[in-house]
């Protein structure tokens, strides 16, 4: 499949090895090894509490970890604040609850990082922001405040905000879980568009339709470890582990 092609001629943009994380005594991530190539689309799924959010939050160091290494585009994650900021300017994240800044207008939400982190002028940041809002289809809401928008619109703003700094990698942490059913597709449409453009994406999501359509690889996690990892075709039709078979049967029956 296409995954093999991309694996051979692209370099690893994320390398995670022997990653272990504990919350107190609770072993949240167990010996995770994962390599992601440039431009790959990876979907992470699994039951709640399986550590999938924790895993992607380790990639931009929102979660600290106790053992193992995470290398993002050639920089190893350590406590060094400079390095963390550098990585965060290349890795963008979209949250389950959008986390827009309620005291700023939509367009100010977008221009914040370009102006303060990337030293762009207000003018160019604003132009770029409006272009991105146009792309996610809410340019006419630019001067409103987040609370005046619907959930789906807010999530599209959040995606536009994370694109504002031209990131190499996008992390999605259950971007559609907090949305009403009729708003899910408008957000997924935007994500599919992004996937086509070749940006590296790791999505924690339960939208299996989305996974089938765009993922290069799907990772199934349970109890803090990667149980199975495969291309979508084999993942859905030829699951090897019993745990995955059970999970699939539970989420696909409805």
């Amino acid at each position, binding site marked *: 499949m296409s995954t093999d092609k991309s694996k051979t001629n692209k370099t690893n943009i994320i390398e995670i090895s022997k990653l272990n994380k504990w919350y107190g005594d609770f072993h949240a991530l167990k010996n995770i090894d994962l390599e992601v190539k440039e431009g790959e689309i990876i979907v992470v799924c699994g039951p709640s509490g399986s550590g999938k959010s924790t895993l992607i939050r380790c990639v931009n160091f929102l979660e600290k970890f106790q053992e193992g290494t995470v290398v993002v585009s050639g920089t190893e994650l350590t406590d060094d604040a400079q390095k963390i900021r550098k990585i*965060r300017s290349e890795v963008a994240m979209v*949250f389950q609850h959008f*986390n827009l800044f309620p005291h700023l207008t939509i367009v100010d939400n977008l221009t914040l990082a370009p102006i303060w982190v990337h030293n762009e002028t207000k003018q160019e940041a604003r132009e770029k922001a409006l272009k991105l809002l146009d792309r996610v289809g809410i340019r006419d809401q630019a001067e409103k405040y987040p609370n005046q928008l619907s959930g789906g619109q807010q999530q599209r703003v959040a995606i536009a905000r*994370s694109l504002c700094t031209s990131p190499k990698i996008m992390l999605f942490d259950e971007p559609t879980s907090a949305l009403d059913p009729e708003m899910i597709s408008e957000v997924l449409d935007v994500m599919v568009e992004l996937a086509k453009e070749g940006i590296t994406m790791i999505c924690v999501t339960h939208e299996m339709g989305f996974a089938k359509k765009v993922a290069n690889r799907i990772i199934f996690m349970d109890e803090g470890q990667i149980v199975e990892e495969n291309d979508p075709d084999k993942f859905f039709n030829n699951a090897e582990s019993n745990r995955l078979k059970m999970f699939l049967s539970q989420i696909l029956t409805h």
Partner: protein
Amino acid sequence: MSVYDQQATRKPPISQIGAILWLRTNLFSSWINTVLTATSLYFLYLMIPPLLDWMFFNASFSFGTINFFGFDIKFSEEMATNSNCGRVGACWPYIYEKLYMYTYGFYPRTETWRPNIVFGLTALLFVIIPLVKNYKYKNRVILSLIVIYPIVSYVLISGGFGLLPVVETHLWGGLLLTLVIASVGIIVSFPIGVVLALGRQSELRVIKLFSTLFIEFVRAVPLITILFMASFVLPLFLEPGNNSVDKLLRALIGIALFQAAYFAEVVRGGLQAIPRGQYEAADAIGLSYFQKNALIVLPQALKISIPNIVGSSISLFKDTTLVLIIGLLDMLAMVGLTTADPYWLGRETEGYVFVTIVMWVMLYSMSRYSRKLELRFNTENTN
């Protein structure tokens, strides 16, 4: 299966509205409420008529002739003296006679235009702030006003810098001194309070420990103690053997540190109300610690805290009256001072009532004003 017709929208039924209903639901809804209402009315009946008698009907308003902006207003032939005022009612000519003391203390009469300009500027500031709401550079305007206003006021009141004759702080008094202590206390302590609040939430242990210790120590000690310490202990550290550190300055340092601890707790309450997601989003887009707090966390936390910040400021305003203990002559201290004047012996009641009214008017307007401000600047929850 059933199909339903679309229902028309109607206005709510006009129920029983009116004064009688209001009385019945609010004052006489149960027998307990009725008893409480009756008791309250009885106490009001006991208190209000004598008070009105004292303040107005039996009071003396013989001010003589007052020049009011160029117009002569004649109240009586001559101004009443203490003895011909009588003892049944208030002697308001006493207040009129001592109004200068109550307002400026011993500030030289030739220089009163300076504090007057400061009073005017203060009023202007309160008018301007709500007006700039929709102005593009409102933050810049407000910030620069907050920086410029104290400097201009200081130069005007204190003089010096080769511009104006110096008026030493021991001459400041009355309402002027009350306003100086309160506004300096609030303006200086606020940034310190914010820093302490952030410090208390810091991940750096030493900073957290220091902030917590400071806040908890100061909050557990009465203001009077701190004023005494500032007045008598601080000089030992600043200039041993020399008592020349300005008395007012010492009090101001004490009050600012005291108030900073209270502001810190108020702001911490606001900080705790900010969802974790806001911090994470700010981190994820790569903002530094400073940017995260200045651009994302504090603007939201301070907005939430406005009512408590104002409440705390009002408390401080009232607490400034304690400075009379260390010999500063604020508005309240003037009551004792002016009634020690042999001509006006025994007029303390008028003095205290007057100070009460002035304080109430200022503080009540302050609280109404802040409520207005809060509604005006509340943008995020409007639909």
